[in-house]
């Protein structure tokens, strides 16, 4: 894992005092709310429905045990005993007081964490593959490149007042587990035919009200020009992205309006110029970072067999664990989606427990996934049963990864001031309704957003649900056929929306159409792609 040196530490320590001073100036009336709002947002502090909300950055979703424990402590000390893991691999707290915010940042800084640029019109926290460093299919560990981006983008003086927010994701395998093409910039680290490492740039993807899949604008940027290329992409956007209309201000609109070819031409021209400006960190810096992501000391010859005699355990292994690149090890996902629970929520106690388990069983490391779950990336198979027993005893043993109960849901109208409808109650009812059938249904990614900003990734769900406000009443649209994996696609709306109970029935009907039509080992998505929308529409509206 990355460890701060004195420069990194000074940066976050200074930030604490900088933010404390900004809060003081607001409370004393030196700055207005209009002036303060972008400052607090650039520190992840929103004013939501019930209180301030603080979003804490978890760079590329990687945490140490001590960091995780601190997140649990903050939930208990400053919030109401819980936190919410988000689709951007961050955590947010719902009940924060403005007067406590700087103290929380100080506590975070003590474990090399921060809330810098977790909101605002700037480069946000960079996300990555939750199995980075563990997955058998990766070209390299993508996180050192994400860390390079983190440092480059932190307080970037030119790109702190962009037309709109800017999200980047970095992966390094062909299987996309980070929805890379649905980001403002998605980077895939690749190896070319000569064995050299480079970066493929996908620019202009996103969800929100105008979902778009990012086109590849350059399939191979040499790795020693990677930051310079990013800077060129951003500069073209900062200068020419639309600022007249908030809803057309994301880079996807610029790329769409200019056309991929023209946007690429401008980026390449800017890139050619910026190459003369010596803004690229030397490869020695990348090597310094990479050394901190070296493999943990795996035990050679650790037994590769699992005792599957406990059927509940075997089910959990089959659902929640992924093959590891190291024989004798496995990557285990802790589902934060208990039947009828609130997706992504965990209590302070559970958060600390997961931290402790990481220390004991996973070389001190955890990951947050964009599906709002937690991964222990390096568990010795010999320890897995013991680990599962502890998880199960603490409400963390749900076996439903990528099943219909593993729902992504934004906070919705229960918490969020932008929402039009509640997301969580819908997730809870669907999870309860289909709990008994989810194993039979198999992989089915269900994603719920409470407004068109799409924090719940509804466009990319095999089944997506979008909450809207219809004359003051919550109404839910159903979408089918989205995917955020390597076969990225956007879902299609089935037709008229449903009320809260109606949408639960509609999801159940859609699963019945699938079960009646599936052949062989087809997933829901495959069947939908094969048979099309018509049979689903007939079942829903016929």
């Amino acid at each position, binding site marked *: 894992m990355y460890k701060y040196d004195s420069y990194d530490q000074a940066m976050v320590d200074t930030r604490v005092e900088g933010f404390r001073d900004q809060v003081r100036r*607001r*409370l004393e009336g030196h700055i207005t709310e209009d002036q303060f709002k972008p400052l607090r947002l650039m520190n992840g502090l929103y*004013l939501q429905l*019930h209180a301030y909300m603080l979003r804490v950055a978890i760079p590329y979703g990687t945490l140490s045990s001590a960091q995780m424990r601190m997140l649990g402590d903050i939930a208990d000390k400053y919030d109401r005993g819980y936190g919410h893991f988000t689709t951007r691999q961050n955590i947010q707290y719902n009940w924060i*007081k403005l007067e406590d915010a700087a103290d929380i940042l100080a506590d975070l800084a003590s474990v090399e964490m921060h809330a810098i640029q977790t909101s605002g019109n700037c480069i946000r926290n960079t996300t990555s593959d939750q199995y980075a460093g563990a997955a058998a299919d990766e070209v390299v560990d993508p996180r050192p490149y994400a860390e390079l981006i983190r440092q480059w983008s932190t307080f970037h003086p030119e790109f702190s007042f962009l037309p709109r927010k800017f999200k980047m994701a970095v992966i390094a395998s062909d299987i996309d587990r980070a929805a890379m093409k649905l980001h403002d910039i998605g980077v895939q680290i690749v190896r070319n035919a000569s064995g050299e490492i480079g970066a493929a740039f996908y620019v202009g993807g996103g969800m929100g009200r105008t979902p778009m899949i990012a086109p590849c604008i350059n399939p191979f940027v040499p790795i020693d020009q990677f930051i310079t290329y990013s800077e060129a992409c951003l500069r073209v956007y900062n200068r020419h992205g639309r600022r007249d209309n908030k809803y057309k201000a994301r880079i996807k609109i610029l790329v769409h309006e200019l056309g991929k070819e023209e946007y690429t031409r401008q980026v390449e021209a800017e890139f050619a110029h910026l190459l003369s400006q010596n803004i690229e960190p030397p490869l020695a810096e990348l090597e310094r970072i990479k050394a901190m992501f070296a493999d943990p000391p795996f035990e050679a010859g650790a037994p590769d067999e699992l005792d599957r005699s406990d059927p509940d355990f075997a089910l959990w292994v089959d659902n929640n664990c992924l093959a590891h690149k190291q024989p004798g090890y496995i990557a285990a996902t802790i589902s934060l989606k208990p039947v009828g629970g*609130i997706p992504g929520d965990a209590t302070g106690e559970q958060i600390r427990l997961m931290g402790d388990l990481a220390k004991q069983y996973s070389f001190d490391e955890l990951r947050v996934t964009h599906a709002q779950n937690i991964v222990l990336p390096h568990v010795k198979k010999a320890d897995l049963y013991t680990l599962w027993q502890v998880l199960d005893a603490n409400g963390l043993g749900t076996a439903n990864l990528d099943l219909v109960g593993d729902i992504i849901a934004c906070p919705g*109208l229960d918490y969020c001031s932008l929402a039009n409808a509640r997301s969580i109650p819908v997730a809870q009812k669907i999870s309860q309704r289909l709990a008994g059938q989810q194993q039979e249904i198999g992989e089915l990614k269900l994603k719920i957003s409470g407004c068109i900003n799409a924090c719940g990734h509804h466009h990319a769900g095999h089944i997506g649900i979008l909450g809207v406000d219809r004359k*003051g009443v919550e109404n839910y649209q159903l979408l089918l056929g989205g995917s955020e994996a390597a076969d990225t696609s956007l879902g299609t709306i089935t037709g008229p929306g449903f009320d809260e109970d109606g949408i639960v029935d509609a999801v159940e009907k859609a699963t019945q159409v699938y079960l009646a039509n599936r052949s062989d080992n087809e997933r829901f998505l495959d069947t939908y792609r094969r048979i099309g929308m018509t049979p689903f529409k007939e079942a829903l509206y016929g």
Partner: protein
Amino acid sequence: MKILTGNDLKTGAVTWWDGVQWSLHVEDAVDVGDHADTILARELAARRVNAAYAIDAVKDEQGVRPGHIKERIRALGPTVRPDLTLKPADPAAGDWVI
């Protein structure tokens, strides 16, 4: 009726204008008639409230009921965590929101 709501600047708590000060309870909210802009300007300038605005509401037998579901959720708390609402002891409190 027109009522005023906002958040406490320091704590972020949802507050309602009761004619004298800002209350945590929507049932204390008073009809401000045509005076919304004057009161809001004065209270925001004095930093006694943050991000405040006027909304429509009605008075019924249960008290003051904001016209929009969003404001009713603000008045009560998250419907999915009854324990964290202003009425944790009332399991049916969430029904008022819908």
